[in-house]
């Protein structure tokens, strides 16, 4: 059975070009980049190249990039650096819709002497900016707001927020794991102090990420060890993966506009056709300010896990904000923060596309999905009542 993969906010396929670039660094050029000999030195040059490629995708300088093991490590490093560098300040501001890598870290800090303000979002998933600005205080150590939401795809106005946070002299961090490589960014012209990204969300390998730390930002390492990454992140480099991430960044930068206009077109087609063919269906999130590849569709009166498993029978891979898929009993905190009613939250499905999706695949989903929803609604005791 063919796999139709529309779950690219979960993870992406490693591009063939990326894999090709990585492979020699497992067993051919296996030197340690820290070594004095030429064999190791060549590897170091490749890492420098990767660093430059990422910097160029972000509009940053290479020395502002620190390689890490994943997006979560980047987030944890940023949070700890900000907190430890501002020991007198005990307040943190974030949003209610952050990824668990951020959310759970702040919940932990809130039990350990920190006051954490979670900024609400509206029904369309847009941040309440007035609330955010009103809560900036003298004891605020850090503001951490994601660039784009992984479930709804809604993009937050990071440029504006970071500028205002900077004016108050507060550190600003953004978890840009979903945004990097999907939308253009130019950190040199912005007031972002730290930014997290992850390799496997932009057709790079899993197990590698990066943290951007603006020159001059107070910093304390999280992984303490050797002199790697100029003492900012100890541990021997994950060489092949770093090189892969560099290549993925280069590819993303080169094709940012053309790839994503194609992806957006397919996403819009999927969304519009589903809305046309399935009644009682709602798009979660602000359709005007979204990642070009993401749509979160709520099918009222059906449950998300059932939809996913029935799509799975056709090889269609997506994900759901429903309770049953998460192992918890409540639907996604993002959809709840947005005030999506329970009738819709349980039946929300996220489709996230990539440049590798074809029009045929999208047509296949448009053909298979409406009968699945209809079938599940026929099973549901609520459907007849509302009809």
């Amino acid at each position, binding site marked *: 059975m063919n796999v139709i993969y529309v779950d690219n906010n979960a993870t992406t396929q490693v591009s063939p070009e990326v894999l090709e670039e990585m492979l020699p660094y497992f067993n051919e050029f296996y030197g340690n980049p820290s070594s004095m000999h030429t064999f190791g030195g060549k590897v170091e040059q490749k890492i420098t190249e990767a660093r430059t490629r990422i910097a160029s995708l972000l509009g940053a300088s290479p020395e502002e990039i620190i390689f890490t093991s994943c997006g979560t490590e980047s987030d944890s490093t940023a949070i700890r650096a900000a907190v430890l560098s501002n020991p007198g300040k005990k307040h943190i501001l974030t949003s209610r819709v952050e990824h668990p890598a951020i959310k759970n870290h702040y919940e932990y800090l809130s039990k350990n002497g920190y006051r954490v303000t979670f900024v609400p979002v509206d029904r369309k998933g847009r941040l309440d900016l007035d609330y955010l600005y009103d809560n900036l205080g003298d004891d605020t150590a850090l503001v951490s707001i994601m660039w784009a939401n992984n479930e709804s795809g809604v993009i937050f106005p990071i440029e504006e927020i970071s500028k205002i946070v900077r004016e108050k002299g507060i550190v600003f961090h953004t978890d840009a794991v979903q945004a990097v490589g999907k939308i253009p960014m130019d950190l040199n012209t912005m007031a972002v102090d730290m930014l997290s990204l992850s390799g496997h969300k932009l057709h790079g390998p899993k197990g590698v990420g990066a943290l951007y730390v603006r020159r001059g930002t107070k910093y304390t390492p999280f992984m303490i060890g050797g002199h790697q990454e100029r003492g900012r992140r100890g541990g021997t480099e994950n060489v092949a993966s770093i090189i892969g991430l560099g290549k993925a960044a280069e590819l993303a930068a080169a094709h940012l506009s053309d790839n994503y206009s194609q992806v957006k077109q397919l996403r819009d087609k999927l969304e519009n056709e589903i809305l046309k063919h399935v009644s009682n269906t709602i798009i979660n999130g602000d359709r005007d300010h979204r990642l070009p590849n993401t749509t979160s569709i709520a099918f009222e009166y059906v449950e998300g896990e*059932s939809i996913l*498993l029935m799509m799975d029978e056709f090889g269609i891979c997506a994900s759901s904000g429903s309770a049953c898929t998460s192992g918890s*009993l409540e*639907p996604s905190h993002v959809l709840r923060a947005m005030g999506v009613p*329970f*009738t819709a939250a349980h039946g929300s499905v996220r489709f996230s596309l990539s440049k590798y999706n074809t029009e045929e695949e999208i047509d296949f989903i448009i053909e298979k999905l409406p009968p699945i929803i209809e079938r599940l609604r026929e*099973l549901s*005791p*609520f459907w*007849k009542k509302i009809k």
Partner: protein
Amino acid sequence: MWEYTNKVKDHFLNPRNVGVIEDADGIGEVGSLACGDALTLYLKLDKNERIKDAKFQTFGCASAIASSSALTEMIKGLTLEEAKKITNENIADFLGGLPKEKMHCSVMGRDALEKAISNYRGEAEKKVEGEIVCECFGITDLEIERAVRENALKTIEDVTHYVKAGGGCESCHEKIQEIIDASLGKERPEKKKVIHLTNIQKIKLIEETLAREIKPALKKDGGDIELVDVDGNNVLVKLRGTCATCSASQITLKHYVESKLRELVAPELLVEEVES
């Protein structure tokens, strides 16, 4: 990804007995949209109170749909008295097991059956009995107690998997723990108040306990145990059968044999294995 058995998948993808019985004799409705799963069960009886037909409608995940389908298959042809004996465990077993996080789906099936039977018998809709413990899902202490008792649940997580209680804001976790503790306390056999055991009494009691409680349990797994000697409070034993070669035997010895003997004979006993 959930590990569903083929039987669960089959009953999810090809659910049996979906629909409504217009002139049903009993209808049982449980769950709600807010909770994420709901089931309506319809029963049609013959003149001998035997279930002639059963149909259902379910909103929920794969295991909720499969549990409902399984339930209707299980009860067709049974008398109401027979059907009443079906437990949530039976439903899960019929499906070849459910992931533990999904056991509440089988509980929902059993609850719907009970409600449909009460509905047929014209019994008033049971008022919410007991006190609400979990505000998020509206679960009472009596419901939690019952799940703990019937399924031998030991942790808050277990309780959440079976009846959802504690799966929301978690503020009721303390109360749930109290219910579990109380229930475990009740089930524990009363400690024999043996204050001064003579050596002979002690050995006799150990032998009895081994024969009555411990050996049968070990034999279920192909193991056995033999009492070699009792030296003061040191109980010297040899492990036999699969126990002798089992890498977990020390755990068996300490966590099971020793704690059982301490519970039923004397709390100061130490169990030691001797070489054959």
